[in-house]
């Protein structure tokens, strides 16, 4: 691996799905994407968020695997499950805080993003970060990202009380140091329209 790192900038994402389409093209993926795109709430907004494997320093998926099927390479890339070991239990699927691993019933195995190890281990960029038209996914050096972006890269997450450090960075505003993800009570959508910065009707309210 070179010293390049993987950066996600959600504010740049345009939801085009080039990343998924290109991921599926990898010969070993056989037409199936190992990454996914979250559509936050299309009825309210066009915001989307690409989700690659974050490659945790201490990967929870590997920790909870009863078959010891998930391995991390010396350079920090968390691999798909090893076929001879994977028992298809989906512990990894339910435990990953980012929702990355997917159990594929047709091959009875968990597969996930390995940062295109076949490419990145020989100095090429991962496919998704090469094609991404918006630069929401970027594979480059820390120096380059600091020079070309207004935000800063961070890789510390806090899920409740659990701190997770990842190999993949996300771009955030300068004042942010870590991403805190707390449990929130999701209530049912209220019937009356509330102030919503993305509601075009509210923007036009005083237009008549």
């Amino acid at each position, binding site marked *: 691996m070179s010293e390049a790192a993987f950066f996600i900038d959600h*504010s*740049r*994402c*345009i*939801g*085009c*799905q*080039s990343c*998924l*389409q*290109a991921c*599926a*093209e990898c*010969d*070993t*993926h*056989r*037409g199936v994407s190992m990454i996914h795109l979250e559509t936050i709430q*299309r*009825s*309210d*907004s*066009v*915001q*989307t968020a690409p989700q690659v494997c974050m490659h945790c320093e201490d990967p929870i998926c590997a920790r909870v695997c009863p078959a010891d099927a998930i391995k991390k390479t010396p350079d920090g890339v968390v691999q798909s499950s090893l076929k001879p070991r994977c028992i298809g239990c989906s512990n990894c699927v339910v435990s990953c805080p980012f929702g990355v691993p997917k159990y594929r019933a047709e091959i009875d195995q968990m597969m996930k993003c390995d940062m295109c190890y076949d490419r990145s281990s020989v100095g090429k*960029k991962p*496919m998704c970060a*090469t*094609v*991404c*038209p*918006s*630069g929401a996914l970027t594979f480059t050096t820390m120096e380059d990202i600091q020079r*070309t*972006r*207004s935000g800063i890269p961070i890789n510390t997450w806090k899920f409740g009380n659990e701190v997770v450090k990842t190999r993949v960075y996300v771009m955030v505003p300068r004042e942010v140091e870590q991403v805190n993800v707390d449990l929130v009570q999701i209530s049912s959508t209220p019937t009356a*329209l509330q102030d*919503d910065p*993305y*509601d*075009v*009707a509210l*923007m*036009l*309210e*005083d*237009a008549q």
Partner: protein
Amino acid sequence: MAKLPTDIPELVKQFGPTLHTVPPGGWVHTDKDEKLVKTHCCFCGQQCGIQLRVRENKVVGFEPWEDFPFNRGKLCPKGVKRYMQDEHPDRLKSPLERVEGEGFKPIGWDAAMDRVVSEIRRIQQKYGNDAFALLTGASLTNEKAYLMGKFARVALKTANIDYNGRLCMVSAGAASKKVFGIDRSANPWSDITKAQVILVAGANIAECAPITTDYLWQAREKGAKLIILDPRMTPIARNADLFIPVRSGGDIGVFNGMLHIMIERGWLDREFIAQHTTGFEAVMETVKKYTPEYSAKIAGVPPEMIVKAAELWGPAPTSFLLHARGIEHHSKGVENCIAAINLVVASGRIGREGCGYAMITGQGNGQGAREQGQKCDQLPGSRDISNPEHRKYIAGVWGVPEESIPQKGLSAIPLVEAIHDGRIKGLISICFNPAVSLPDGNYVREALGKLEFYVNIDFFLSETARYADIVLAGSLMEEDEGTTTNTEGRVIRHRQAVTPPEGARQDWAIINEIASRLGYADKFHSAPREIFEELRIASKGGVSDYSGMTWDAIERDYGMFWPCPEPGHPGTPRLYEGGKFGHPDGKAHFLPIEWRPSAEMPDEEYPIILTTGRVVSHFLSGTQTRRIGSLMEQYPQPRCEIHPRLAEKFGIAEGDFVKVESRRGEVVVRAQVVKTIRPDTVFVPYHWPLDRSANNLTIRAIDPVSNIPEFKICAVRVSKTDAPTDAIAQLEMEAGGIR
């Protein structure tokens, strides 16, 4: 004849569209005997560099081409999956002949050509030369576009040739020509990243020109302010500093309103205006009444938005204007563009680094295909067919008497109208799917049914080709070579990756063969490289001058920008440096623009505005992308975007089947209830055929100057309906069915 030979489900059964989902040979992990061909995407006007993986004369995949400077390996989903159109089960591999009651049967090339030539002769002898017309396309290479124009004027001697760029770039081109004197984006894309304020009017960049997104974001990282005009909150609008959800057709309100404030607050480059422009007094007079309040009524937005736009744009040291079909697809498309361009000229911010203007071309060769002489009013080199000097020069290049070159013919919509009312009896079309892409679809399909003889050249049997008497199996972009000119005015090289399948022929070879059989073998015998040499000479001295270019230099320099008037010339990435414009007086010409209503405004009977457009995974009429499995999976059928307030009024919920009706036709699609659209407007994308075609609704009104159709606004009503169960509805979604 030109009527459907049998019913549509039967034709779909024979010729698709069907989906292609697996590369030839399956998902094999090998690079054995594989070569990488550096070429370009066949789809939009960005013309991204891409490498095609080729094994045993088959395109089996792609690899990003990171050295190509425009897109540096970046691709949209269409680019990623474009290779799936190769080795496609629907691919035409033989000429076809219409068989009444059955469909089409394969015939030999010789028999097909005999029939084509004898019908051309019969129709032209009986009804006159102009009764045989040509409809061509803006996805053709420069060489093929040039050949089509020459074929029409020299071999067919018909005035009636036009192309589907008429649905795309003509408003922008005409406006640019009127104000600047040249029809081309003024700057290379690299200038976008250096601008401190960027105004994007009517361009869903994220979906229609995805690669441009990174240029916008690069500017934003450096602090640039972004202003977006669109009736929908598109993915780029979401992150804009100012999103103006303008009512379709109301853009002039915003532009004139901004200029009004700029004049009032002194945000003008007076020196630039005095030295390098004409006509500003008249513009000042016109925009006097465009106060924020007056302008806001036209635009359908709060006046504060227009004030804020002027405050961002007016005093900026550098700026960039980009526009696309959103303001161009109007019966006042040229006026919309001029009003926008006036903002650039008044600021004096053009012809310098980080200061400029660009139109975002939609089709693959949207720029080049309109320069080589396949427009009804143009000869090669962007020359004017009614200018005696221009005619004389081209007559010399072609070796024909000047008077033998026909005068200006009909543009696409009047041409189809002439077919409908019987003035045009015969048609050859290539790279054009009017049954899906032209407005007022029912009328267009009726017109096709009236042709006495229709030849369609294509690689798939498009919805339009179903009306043909003879279908000639042509070639894909990667089965041929040539050049295109991208949205920046950069001429680039398409390399041949594979040969056409046996039984299909390269398009230029088909045209040469028809011309030869008509008695013009001496003028139609060249392959693309030789055609480029002729095109170069034909363009010499014209506005779009390619005469100094060679294919080798184009390859070496990753493309060359025109004008390139002599060998060794580096090309011209940025136009208008030093305030020198394209008009004979060297100045930019301001033109005063008054807002006027669109052809069909909403009323009691049809109270809602319909606007149409594209989605990221499909291209134009969908004849290619509706055949690619993973692109269909991403967006399988058209949906009607509708605001929850409007939806509630009609009792429509997310996913309901809705009928959208205009005075001309209807579609039934599913509703997508979203807060990201104006509550007086609905949106339906246009890539699908038949009962799912948004163009069943659109209006056949055209701009008086550019003749572009008004795709972006017509009046409709929307109602909840039951799931359709007819035979068309039951087809697969790629064929026009609904689920």
